[in-house]
């Protein structure tokens, strides 16, 4: 199988994570915490990454991007950059849930991923490692912490994601059950893991750039849905 050069962009959290991978080998990666808007540093960081890996953008054969849920601006910048590269280079693109990426990077098998959605709400998903890959037992959702608690399975569940620490600390000891806290360093989705997860999809042809859509879970939409008595599930995503 021919080696495939992949760029992975994970911009859904305050940490900007980038990786260049070939044959599951990481050629270069970078992690930065932009003080200002991610848009201002993404392209310069990419340029440094290509330079360090001694490859050129035109050598890319696939581009992968984390679709969130997460930072609104970060996702717009990450997804539009991935779209621009895929379109201009005519290479396949793949978008994955940033929560799946966080789960896969946790080292655990049953993983709850949480991020702050403000106003006492959380973005959450529950992923389970299986022989076929990662399965979402609770798809990316917008919900209140107490509702999330009621949906957790029995048994050991690792907690990860940008709000892992806050969610865990806010739980009374009696409600922690089988929840296991991961070290903060393993809680954010990283581009190296994203590149690895996306590779099979990119080899299979990926998706068209215009089919990459951030996973926005909108509060206003959630309220409309809840008013009708329904549940809020993620929309958008990489419609592969």
């Amino acid at each position, binding site marked *: 199988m021919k080696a495939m050069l992949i760029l992975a962009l994970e911009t859904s959290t305050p940490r900007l994570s980038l990786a260049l991978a070939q044959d599951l080998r990481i050629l270069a990666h970078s992690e930065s915490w932009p003080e200002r808007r991610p848009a201002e540093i993404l392209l310069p960081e990419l340029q440094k990454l290509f330079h360090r890996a001694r490859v050129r953008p035109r050598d890319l054969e696939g581009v992968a991007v984390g679709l969130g849920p997460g*930072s*609104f*601006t970060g996702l*717009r910048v990450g997804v539009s950059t991935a779209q621009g590269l895929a379109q201009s280079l005519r290479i396949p693109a793949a978008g994955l849930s940033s929560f799946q990426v966080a789960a896969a990077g946790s080292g655990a098998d049953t993983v709850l991923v949480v991020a702050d959605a*403000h*106003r*006492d709400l959380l973005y959450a998903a529950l992923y389970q490692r299986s022989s076929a890959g990662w399965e979402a037992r609770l798809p990316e959702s917008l919900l209140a912490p107490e509702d999330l608690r009621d949906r957790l399975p029995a048994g050991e569940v690792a907690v990860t994601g940008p709000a892992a620490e806050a969610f865990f600390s806010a739980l009374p000891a009696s409600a922690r059950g089988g929840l296991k806290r991961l070290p903060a360093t393993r809680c954010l989705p990283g581009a190296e893991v994203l590149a690895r997860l996306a590779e099979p999809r990119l080899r299979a042809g990926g998706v068209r750039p215009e089919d990459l859509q951030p996973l926005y879970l*909108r*509060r*206003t*939409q959630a*309220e409309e849905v809840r008013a009708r008595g329904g549940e809020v599930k993620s929309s958008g995503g990489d419609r592969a």
Partner: protein
Amino acid sequence: MTGKPTLLREMITHGAEETEQAGERLARNLGPGDVVALSGDLGAGKTCLVRGLARGLGCRPAVASPTFTLLHEYPGRIPLYHFDLYRLKTPAELEDLGCDEYFYGDGVCVLEWAEKSGSLLPARHWEVRFEILGDSTRRLRIEPPRQKG
């Protein structure tokens, strides 16, 4: 010396300059992540208060936001984001513009027509109500945030 001034909950201002000074005083009680909702009739002095807030926060003059026509940004150590929601049709429109990154961000947000933001307005917010008493006299009522979160 640079401590917070006593917060006046209610005051009468006589002219634009005094309203601006009220904004400047209020600014010293504000920090990153604070949201201020303004209400009052046209010509009540809301814009003067915003100018005072910007002065009090040590901001540079406003620049129109490149991406967001409802918003003016005053860059500075603590940036000020001035939203005029008069033309907003639905709260969803505001959400689609990424308002949370301002409301829970690095600066102070001040909103005109805040009621149009519906439930997107953070529960923890300041309120300033303007009442026109005469040609140039205004009553300002300032309500600090009632709840956390």
